[in-house]
């Protein structure tokens, strides 16, 4: 089963979510430990925000209008 399918079954990827080919590769190349970590902390996998707000989930796209604000 692909990582995307596993994460969908865990409820962390919304049914019908669309990812770019690059993002599909990124997600499907995650290690088993990384996938288990996402499931463990219930971390949703979503580039929706990027796509809705920047028009792209391509590398380098970032929602710079709303940075998290907690900086190192």
């Amino acid at each position, binding site marked *: 089963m692909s990582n995307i399918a596993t994460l969908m079954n865990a409820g962390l990827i919304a049914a019908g979510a669309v*990812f770019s080919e*690059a*993002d599909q590769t*990124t*997600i499907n190349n*995650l*290690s088993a*430990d*990384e996938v288990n*970590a*996402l499931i463990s*902390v*219930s*971390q*949703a*996998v*979503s*580039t*929706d*925000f*990027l796509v809705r*707000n920047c028009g792209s*989930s391509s*590398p380098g*796209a*970032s*929602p*710079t*209008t*709303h*940075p*998290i*604000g*907690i*900086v*190192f």
Partner: protein
Amino acid sequence: METLSHSRRLRDKIRVIRGEMDAAAKALWTHPRLREIYPEFLFRNHAVIRSSVPLMQAAAAACEKRLASDPVAEGMLAYFRKHIPEETGHDDWVLDDLETLGFRREDVLKRIPPPSAAALAGAQYYWIRHVHPVALLGFIAVLEGTPPDVAFFENLADRIGLPRRAFSNLLLHGKLDPQHRDDLDRALDALPLTETHHSIMGVSAFQTVNLLTRVVDEAVQ
């Protein structure tokens, strides 16, 4: 097939899971009561970044113990030795911002931090001490990966009627973090990282995004 750099692999992973964190950021910065919430956000901000330098010191100490046996230890140690002085005192900037808003630093330091901030830092101590200090690079990649936009926060301060001086931490990091982000990418790309190292960094980054989102969400509630 393109072979991705170490830094690109890590950044791509963070990108695909940061949707909720970005939504939390938007909810904060567009909140109708942001002027009232901002001091609480600063308190939580301080709770997290007061651990930045101690975490890097812990990671550096772990690298020193591994120098003879671990091929990535030397490069990581060089990165931390450079970055620790660069970050020293940045938590004071947040206390300065709170004092600008009328909150005495002595009172801020007496408050018990939220468990979410303790968990965020505590997880890194666990990874550093019990797994591998490379985990901290995943944490740093999240926190320094999206430098604050200086114009955005200057305009925001003006919009909500707070002095720009109360945003000094964000404004200063807006100027510094692009370089810090690039420095981390260069350091990552020079390290002989294995797939195990990538997994550890990924797990650490995912946990960081998850807990950072919680820290910010709680400020808005």
